[in-house]
């Protein structure tokens, strides 16, 4: 029979997905109420990818994210309060309100940032892997990116460089078959992004992005390969973006039936029943949901109560102070 995760890991995956889902649902609601400025791209529907991948990572491992970055931030261990405060543009946010949704980051958690330039995270994660190899650190680099991003030159140059140097990096393509409003067939002729691994002679793996356990094991293999000197992997997770590209998008361009089917294929609901079928008591799941909700309530309260940044600090943090004398 198929590999199964331990109950402990199973619950960890469940909690990570629930944390992402509830955080995003709250954010959508707060955005609609005008609490959150700027653009908002949510991760709802793709939780199993960030959860399944990040459950294999330590705080030392480095990830780069995208414009759709909350899920990665949360999966990599991000706190609700500082994340929410950042989305609010408050001084107490992870990035003092300077980054916001599209640039949220916490290097101490190995989260090198959401990124508002499509595919820009790939070369950066490649560089994090280069540092690991060069300085003998045992972290791996992981770049999350979308199907649309796989058409950028930065994707090509990153995978080729990682392959030539056998870098410890995993490229995780979240293939939701849309680049904003553009369906896959309009932006690439191939059906699977994973086939592009052949252009670099590296492994290309496809996994069901709605099966968190499958994602977990595929990512585990790729991460272990990277960590043990086996080089890069292109891991493609088939997933679905539930909401619009961003909150201003009503998705008029989507096939309703197809979309409905996708919505019914909810990774969290599915994993819940798997856990129950494996003997996990409902109470445990309820307890997780309650805990997450409590933390979320507190986080929103924290964001609401937090002070705005001081305009006097607007130009702080551009340069790192440096004194030649100090050399």
């Amino acid at each position: 029979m198929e590999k199964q995760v331990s109950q402990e890991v199973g619950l960890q995956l469940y909690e990570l997905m629930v944390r992402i889902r509830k955080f995003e649902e709250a954010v959508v609601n707060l955005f609609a109420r005008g609490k959150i400025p700027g653009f908002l791209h949510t991760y709802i529907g793709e939780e199993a990818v960030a959860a399944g991948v990040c459950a294999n990572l330590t705080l030392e491992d480095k990830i780069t994210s995208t414009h759709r970055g909350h899920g990665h931030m949360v999966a990599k261990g991000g706190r609700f309060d500082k994340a929410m405060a950042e989305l609010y543009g408050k001084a107490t946010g992870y990035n003092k309100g300077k980054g916001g949704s599209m640039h949220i980051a916490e290097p101490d958690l190995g989260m090198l940032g959401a990124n508002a330039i499509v595919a820009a995270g790939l070369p950066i994660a490649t560089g994090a892997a280069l540092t690991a190899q060069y300085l003998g650190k045992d972290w791996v680099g992981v770049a999350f990116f979308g199907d649309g991003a796989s058409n950028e030159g930065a994707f090509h140059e990153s995978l080729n460089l990682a392959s030539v140097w056998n870098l410890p990096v995993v490229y995780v393509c979240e293939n939701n078959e849309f680049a904003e409003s553009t369906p896959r067939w309009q932006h690439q002729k191939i059906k699977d992004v994973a086939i592009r691994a052949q252009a670099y002679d590296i492994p290309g793996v496809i996994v069901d992005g709605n099966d968190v356990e499958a994602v977990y094991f595929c990512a585990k293999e790729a991460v272990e390969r990277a960590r043990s000197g086996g080089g890069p992997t292109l891991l493609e997770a088939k997933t679905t973006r539930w909401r619009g590209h961003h909150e201003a998008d009503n998705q008029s361009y989507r096939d309703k039936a197809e979309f409905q089917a996708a919505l019914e294929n909810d990774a969290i609901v599915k994993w819940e029943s798997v856990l129950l079928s494996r003997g996990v008591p409902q109470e445990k799941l309820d307890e997780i949901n309650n805990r997450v909700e409590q933390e979320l309530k507190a986080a929103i309260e924290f964001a609401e109560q937090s002070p705005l940044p001081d305009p006097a600090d607007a130009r702080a943090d551009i340069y790192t102070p440096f004194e030649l004398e100090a050399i």
Partner: protein
Amino acid sequence: MAVMTYREAVRQALREELQNDERVYLIGEDIAEFGGSLKVTLGLLDEFGPKRIRNTPISEMGLLGAAVGSAATGARPIAEVMYSDFFGMAMDQVFNQAAKMRYMFGGKLSIPLTIRAPMGGRRSAAAHHSQCLEAWFMHIPGLKIAMPANAYDAKGLLKTAVRDPNPVIVFENKMLYNVKGEVPEEPFFVPFGVAKLVREGSDVTVVAVSDMVDYSLKAAEALEADGISLEVIDPRTIAPLDIETIIQSVKKTGKLVVAHEANLTGGIGAEIAAQVGYRAFDYLQAPIERVAAKDSPIPFAPILEKEILPDDQDVIDAVHRVMDYAG
């Protein structure tokens, strides 16, 4: 005269040019059914079909390069760079290819390419979706650059750009898309290199581009109360730049304020100040003031962004400085 938004004016120009010349087509990301990230091309797909309203993969280098090659061989593409911040993915095709091909080939071909690039901040879109990069392109011989500040110029300059046999970049201001203005019913063109005297005045000349024109007019009204009369000039195109009109005005007022949203250092205000300081040296009664964004990446939090970006108050302060200049 019809009254319409800046967005609708741009769309009308596109529609008229598409109707006027079969060789004209639109190429860009999500510009078809989605109507573009900023909805400027909405509806054109239904009118002109997918052959002429071409959705591309997320490949700025590829799509701009294809537009260059297409323009070099008889078509007249109008490319959209979704946000001008994304030029970084494709600069080579703009400044080394489009701008230089004619010259390098001894005048043997033309590149009738129009690139539309929405620019600017004030939307909490943070550091990767808020920049004004016109200074880069003004520094590149071979390019023409238009910066419409209202619906009338948005339509007239874009139509001229499409007819011009040279590569032209039109920087549209995102904050102006919803601003209404008067636009003639009948087709018209706005010539390049001809500044517009937006407001006649006697005390101080204000040269402003894009949305700083409106801020300058607001400042002019406020200052009128204090009996200070501003002459506001909008160059409309910065390459070519109508320096004569600016010089004439400064010879009359003896005082100049230059205003743009891009950050101060290395902005186009420096070039304009340098030229005026050179050509109107004996007429200047006070140092030339530059109103611009403070040198910083654009922050996410509204309160910080407002601190960084210039507005009518900054123009007013600058005018007071030139008026009060004692030497």
